[in-house]
């Protein structure tokens, strides 16, 4: 494991809705690396990514990362239907203090759609807009939850190119996905880290 990792997890345990989901997860990601989280539905991929994004606390262990280094993309894209594609993107760009949206628009083939209201986009186009937000954040670590949902084959290719470009510029990515993106990435199967469900004797824990 590299010492100058952008993101390091040490024995992380997370819970969803009060029930422990994962325990003992450890990995480190250095610049230029990508990690794909695998596991069946409900195995805790989303929960782990939310913890990495800082949206929920860990039960045990530690996540070592600069909180300002992580760009998170969830199932929902956070798109406002009444704003145009360019307006949606410029808003996020301004919020993250980067202002250039042209690279993000061209990376996801959105240039022709820039002036269209986001509510007139198809599901796949919305997803592309949601993913292009990652580029305008300018943050080194991308935490992606099922990024390829509703994307067609060509768009998946665009996304894989974007991730590759990001890694070449010294970025890193952690993503939960079921498909093969053709990216040079390590894989981590979360099935082996499933936390033991509390048995009947664990009532006291619920009141702690």
């Amino acid at each position, binding site marked *: 494991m590299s010492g100058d990792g952008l993101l390091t997890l040490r024995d992380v345990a997370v819970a969803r809705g009060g029930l422990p989901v994962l325990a003992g997860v450890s990995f480190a990601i250095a610049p230029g690396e990508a990690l794909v989280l695998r596991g069946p539905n409900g195995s805790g991929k989303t929960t782990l990514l939310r913890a990495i994004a800082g*949206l929920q606390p860990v039960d045990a262990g530690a996540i070592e990362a600069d909180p300002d280094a992580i760009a998170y993309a*969830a199932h929902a*894209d956070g*798109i406002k239907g009444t*704003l145009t594609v360019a307006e949606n993107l410029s808003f996020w760009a301004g919020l*993250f203090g980067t202002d250039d949206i042209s690279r993000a628009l061209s990376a996801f083939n959105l240039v022709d759609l820039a002036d269209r209201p986001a509510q007139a986009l198809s599901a796949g186009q919305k997803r592309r807009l949601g993913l292009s937000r990652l580029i305008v954040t300018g943050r080194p670590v991308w935490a992606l939850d099922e990024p390829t949902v509703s994307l067609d084959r060509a768009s998946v290719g665009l996304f894989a190119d974007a991730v590759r470009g990001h890694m070449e510029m010294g970025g890193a990515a952690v993503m939960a996905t079921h498909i093969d993106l053709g990216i040079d990435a390590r894989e981590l199967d979360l099935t082996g880290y499933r936390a033991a469900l509390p048995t009947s004797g664990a009532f006291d824990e619920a009141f702690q």
Partner: protein
Amino acid sequence: MIRLLTRDLRLAIRAGGGFGLAVAFFLIVSILVPFGVGPDRATLAPVAAGILWVGALLACLLSLDRIFATDHEDGSLELLATSPVPLEALVAVKALAHWLTTGLPLTLAAPLFGVFLSLPPSGMPWLIASLAIGTPALSMIGAFGAALTVGLKRGGLLLSILVLPLYVPTLIFGADTVRRGIEDLGPMTPLTLLAGITLGAIALLPFAGAGVLRVNLR
């Protein structure tokens, strides 16, 4: 943060944003009350201040659940929470955007609606002053309530019940300012207390709102 404010204002003005809802509601109240209690100046004038303030308060309440709910539904709230903007600033900016789209138009429209309700002219400046000073507290308290109920489906009812008691002091001092202004009984006392509530709300509630948002986003 200015980006966030301009985005929220733009969303409010575009179709379906709900801008004007509060003023329309305020207008309806001011028009219907004279029909209900009779147009007689002697009956309307004494209650005008109270009705205008109750109307403004309910108009404000009407749009509260939208403050965070729309952002929560489309996932923006989670993305905003992971953005460089601190949650405290997010709550404050949301409250400011709510005030600019409800409290401020209400304040500007109030003198006209005061005429509908036969509010004596001597009360007009106090009506404007009390609304201008008091409605920011309504938006700020409302933003806190909206942050509390953000994860709930149809949280509007719970939000109203939670927020209404917190609105009572603002209502009392606001309406009292206008009443004392009309009768020339020293309206500065309730107006100062009203300003105190507003300043206290602005100073404390962004932090409380950010705290409950953090819990609700888990």
